[in-house]
């Protein structure tokens, strides 16, 4: 099957999965009130996050489409909805200022004078287009990695905390070992070995990222295990699986949600650092920034590339950080009472 078909299917499944989780959460009063609380505290940031998600989803669905006569064969590759919002021959030959009518160097007339809102880059690609496409990469890094981190952390954390004994010793040893390696170095080593590519980067980020959540979950499970209602359930002969799913997991979910949201921005920022070291994901904002860093030393400097990518990155991270703080305020029992 073609790669883009697989990718479309995965996106479809993901959206369905998220919708299912959201629907389940919506039925519980606790989560409905928490969501309303976050929306009340940080409406603007939440809107920004949703906007980025929307752009990313638009860019995630792609297809080839019916052939047209004016198209060269080389153009017959899958294009996403975002790509389709721009004409096929939207490229220029080289740099041009935002909304310029002529090229930045040499002053030749552009094919589309005044149409490139954020200018074009060194090989004439539209910067607005590239920036919009970066949203998909950022959400892929944050989202896919979170999907790797949460099951790993829950599986190891809950089982270690609940069963204790040798298994707990082993998991604790595993966590200590992974945590002992400096995360950036470990990331680099993993990518050097796994090879470059979006999935590899996400796996590497996942391997370094699950440890913190696992430790939290293990600690919380140790505490919950001794609580009266869990003991009562055990005394009544409730099966272990049922105890895990009915009594432990729901009481761990707030930790998972808080950590996942706070983790997200860290992951996207890590990807920027990786791009800067030359091992990031193609098309990310980090890579745009990396490519643009020499453009500042030109005379006159070329700033629109750098500014567009940095501002997009900044806006997403800021919004996620603010939403994350609100989520923690709402869900964390220690702060839930403070400052309404």
């Amino acid at each position, binding site marked *: 099957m073609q790669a883009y078909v697989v990718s479309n299917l995965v996106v479809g499944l993901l959206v369905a999965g998220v919708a299912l989780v959201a629907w389940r959460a919506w039925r519980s009063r606790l989560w409905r009130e928490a969501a309303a609380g976050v929306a009340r505290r940080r409406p603007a940031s939440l809107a920004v996050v949703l906007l980025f998600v929307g752009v990313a989803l638009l860019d995630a669905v792609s297809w080839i489409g019916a052939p047209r006569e004016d198209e060269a064969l080389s153009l017959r590759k899958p294009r996403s909805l975002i790509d389709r919002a721009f004409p096929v021959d939207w490229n220029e030959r080289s740099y041009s200022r935002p909304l310029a009518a002529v090229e930045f160097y040499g002053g030749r007339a552009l094919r589309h004078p005044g149409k490139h809102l954020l200018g074009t880059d060194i090989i004439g690609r539209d910067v607005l287009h590239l920036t919009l496409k970066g949203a998909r990469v950022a959400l892929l890094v944050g989202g896919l990695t979170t999907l790797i981190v949460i099951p790993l952390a829950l599986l190891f954390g809950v089982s270690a905390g609940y069963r204790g004994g040798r298994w707990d010793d082993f998991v604790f*040893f*595993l966590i*200590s*070992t*992974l*945590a*002992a*390696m*400096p995360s*950036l*170095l*470990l990331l*680099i*080593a*993993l990518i*050097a*070995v*796994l090879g470059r590519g979006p999935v590899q980067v996400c796996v590497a980020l996942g391997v370094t990222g699950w440890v913190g959540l696992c430790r939290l979950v293990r600690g919380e499970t140790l505490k919950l295990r001794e609580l009266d209602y869990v003991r009562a359930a055990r005394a009544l002969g409730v099966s272990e699986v049922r105890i895990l799913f009915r009594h432990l997991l729901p009481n761990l979910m707030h930790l998972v949600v808080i950590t996942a949201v706070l983790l997200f*921005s860290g992951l996207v*920022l890590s990807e*920027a*650092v990786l*791009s*800067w*070291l*030359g*091992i990031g994901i193609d098309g990310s904002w*980090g890579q745009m*920034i*990396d490519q643009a*860093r020499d453009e*500042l*030393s030109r005379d006159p*400097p070329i700033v629109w590339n*750098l500014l567009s990518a*940095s501002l997009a*990155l*900044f806006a997403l*991270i*800021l919004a996620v*950080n*603010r939403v994350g*703080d609100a989520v923690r305020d709402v869900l964390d029992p220690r702060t839930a009472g403070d400052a309404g």
Partner: protein
Amino acid sequence: MLSYVIRRTAYGFVVVLGVLFFLFVLFFGAVKPEDMALRAIGEKAPPEAIQQWIVNHGYDRPRLWNPEDPTDTLLVEHFRSMLSFDFGRSDIDDVEISRRLREGIGPSLSLTVPLLILGVLFGISLSLFVAYFRGTYIDTVGVTLCVLGMSVSIVIYIIGGQYLIGKTLRWFPISGFDPSPGVVLRFLALPITVALAAGIGESVRFYRTVFLEETHRDYVRTARAKGCGDGRVMAHHVLRNSLIPILTQVVMAIPFLFTGSLLLESFFGIPGLGAMTVEAIHDNDFSTLRVMVFIGSLAFIAGQILTDLSYALVDTRVRLE
């Protein structure tokens, strides 16, 4: 106390062994020696050259089990060389790795030590200021600024700082390094300023949380009820008691002074261990990467043990068992 130290160190050693095993799986299990050779001497190398390279670097040993001599395997050699700090030569350019480490440690320390000290000083004083005005709009503005600062990528701080301070204002040289005493500060000023700006948001937020947690305690209320002024409460009661969590955090950071800073060093041309690591990444120099990860984890484990001990020394309520 002594038995605790011994047990803690022993567990640390076990974790070191775990790290070494992980590194072995990562670097020898997932990558074939042929691929390492190809990356080292070029994709188009003839097969004889590849074989020669593998033999020269000792990668021709069996990985796990050698029927003739059980000690002559890659696994044993990997553990032996790491644990005896006999790192051998780089896969790429045959320079001794330990010599590189010795050369890089000076520039790295001259960057990281002042950075840690200034970072802690700035962090504590700014966050004391913000925590003093807790609940007012100074606090709100301060926290908002912290979140804004945290949301900017370190990469942008570096590029922006270099452009603004180095190029437009021309205060300091853009990059480079010179170890002679009079000049070194001129080269370090820019990276240190940039790193301070990049880290200040997160540290102020952390210290502020620590301070605020203290201000809710009973003894603070008692002090205030006895007529203690706000400033005195902050400086004498809150700060002193908050120093415990702060101290442990700082102690944890000390071993990492020795691993240098990847981004700052490579971008500002400081020939330290961080820059060396970045070079190793670009050259696919697995032998150097392996050593750096190993040293980094040694540093982390040492930091953890130091943290536990300093905690027990400072906080007399803690009893080590």
